[in-house]
């Protein structure tokens, strides 16, 4: 009975903001601010790109999708050409839908401007091979040739923006969003050369935050989005600089998370009080 009541409390706590669509301001997260600044400082010249790994599927879509959205929105706004790809086979659907949705939203927001497939971004699809593939990618002298074809089977060389990408030195930013363990490490370990290591930012689920912090501390990672809270603060920064940016839905999700955190803390306190009272009773008895 006790357990069922806890389940009910949690479900109601998460459901209320989503059903009534109300939101609270997100909390400031230093790691997300750093990441915003890192992407803001990226200077991509001709033939230079950002690689965005979307290594997530249905399981962590609730946390990772908002992160992928804010990163791509920022890169699109800055007109940095993006190659989206994944080490996770179940990411195929998000590789197609997220950049297209962001492009469509930006086009709606700014009539007359366009973000088109093949110009603003290209989808290199699922890349099998893990560490081996990552080493080959880092060693490739021509990334367009390495990828060969996009997810639709069209050669990279057919898209002028991505026709002659050059080697790893042309990758000005690597962004990786995942909830999986061991996927992000592959990039840190192998996507580099002895004389070049691209700027790396990462979006992770709440569970993997502690692991990501060791790379943030060692400066191998230049920016971090911590779960939905990180994405919410990032979207707030985007909104401050681009007031027309839409982040209402994300803030509603973040509010559900804030309330669930409060409930969780109340449950910890309640659990301790109940435990203390029971212990007293049993010692008295």
């Amino acid at each position, binding site marked *: 009975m006790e357990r069922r009541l806890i389940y009910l409390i949690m479900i109601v706590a998460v459901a209320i903001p989503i059903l009534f669509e109300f939101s609270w301001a997100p909390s400031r997260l230093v790691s997300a601010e750093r990441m915003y600044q890192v992407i803001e400082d990226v200077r991509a010249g001709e033939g230079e790109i950002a690689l965005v790994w979307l290594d997530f599927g249905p399981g962590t879509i609730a946390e990772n999708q908002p992160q992928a959205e804010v990163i791509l929105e920022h890169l699109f706004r800055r007109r940095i050409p993006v190659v989206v790809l994944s080490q996770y086979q179940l990411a195929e659907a998000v590789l197609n839908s997220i950049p297209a949705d962001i492009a469509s939203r930006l086009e709606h927001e700014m009539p007359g401007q366009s973000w088109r497939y093949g110009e603003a971004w290209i989808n290199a699809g699922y890349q099998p091979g893990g560490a081996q593939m990552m080493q080959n990618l880092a060693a490739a002298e021509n990334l367009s040739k390495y990828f060969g074809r996009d997810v639709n089977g069209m050669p990279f060389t057919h898209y002028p923006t991505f026709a002659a990408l050059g080697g790893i030195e042309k990758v000005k930013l690597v962004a990786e969003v995942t909830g999986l363990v061991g996927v992000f490490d592959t990039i840190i370990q192998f996507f580099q050369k002895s004389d070049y290591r691209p700027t790396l930012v990462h979006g992770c689920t709440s569970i993997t935050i502690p692991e990501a912090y060791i790379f943030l501390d060692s400066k191998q990672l230049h920016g971090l989005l911590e779960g939905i809270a990180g994405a919410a603060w990032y979207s707030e920064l985007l909104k401050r600089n681009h007031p027309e940016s839409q982040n209402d839905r994300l803030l509603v999700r973040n509010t559900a998370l804030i309330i669930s955190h409060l409930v969780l803390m109340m*449950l910890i306190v309640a659990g301790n009080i109940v435990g203390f009272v029971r212990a007293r009773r049993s010692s008295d008895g």
Partner: protein
Amino acid sequence: MDPRTKLIRIVTLLGGVYFLVYFLLPKSVLLQLGIQQNHESISNGFIVVGAMAIGLGLINLLVGHGAKIVFKRAGWSNSAALLIALAVMFFVTCAQWVGSLQSSYDIREVQLIGEFASRIVSDDQDASRRDTVPSVSQRIGALVGYGQSKAAFMRQMVESQDASLDSQESRRALLDELRIALNEFQVGLDGLESSRVASLGEGNRAVMEDLVARATRLGGAYSALRQSDQTLTLFSRLYGVLYDGLFVQLGAAMFSLLGVYIAAAAYRAFRVKTVESALMMSAAVIVMLGQISAVFLMLHLGSFGEEAYRFLPKVRQWLLEVPNSAAFRAIRLGAGVAGLMLAIRMWLSIESKSFSSDKRG
């Protein structure tokens, strides 16, 4: 040791030796040995071998669950559901992919017009290429012919879609954009055809550059319409229903259970009984409060709320960056050493008992 076991062990050892040698030897030696030049192909070969696991998994599923269905073993209906879902998803995904591939090729054919026109201009400016390609008049003739055939095809498509178009505003806008781009392109193409360009002087080059701009716009408009069409095909919709409507939701539902389990665990297991558990609980509460510190501002707690808003994220950051990082580094170092040992054991086939006939025997 049977020959199969021997072969597996030899291949495993050689695979390991290859990567060890590649890592240790300097690049100049690798080049001399011809390894560097072929490394990408060799490692792609290893990736292909790894990718075969997908096929192997598929066969395994079919054999395992197929046998269950054929012999009506316990839970055969679940196996049938799995195999039917597999077959349906496989078919729909393939059909959707083929449709999208066709759409991409059609788009590409239109985009080629602008690129070809642009190439004619650039080749004419490059003295080294000018003599290696057909004459300007020949190439422009081919460009006009190809452009006219594509324009006719698109005009036919616009007219047929116009007649059958429903009230979708966004699709009508895309169709209107294509119609305008098509008319502009036709004007440019007719101008080029009537001027009978034999060489590219200043004036003619301007005409060609104008055509490039018109063709690029046409390519963009056609691409937008076809991509929009692609999302409306039967297989794209079916894929959306199966993947977004079913698979994503089921996956998210599975993960959402974690939230309620954590809540129950917080209540039942997070009890302060020792100094260590008190420290752990304090750290957890501070990290959570640091993540939702804006709540203190909303509660209108005056200067206390403002201080908490400023102070808690800093403490959270310190907890994650210092004690947490120290502990995690130790864990990862330990795991790394263990991983290395396991890799060496696998390389030397000490771990591969499952391939050995001794075990089976």
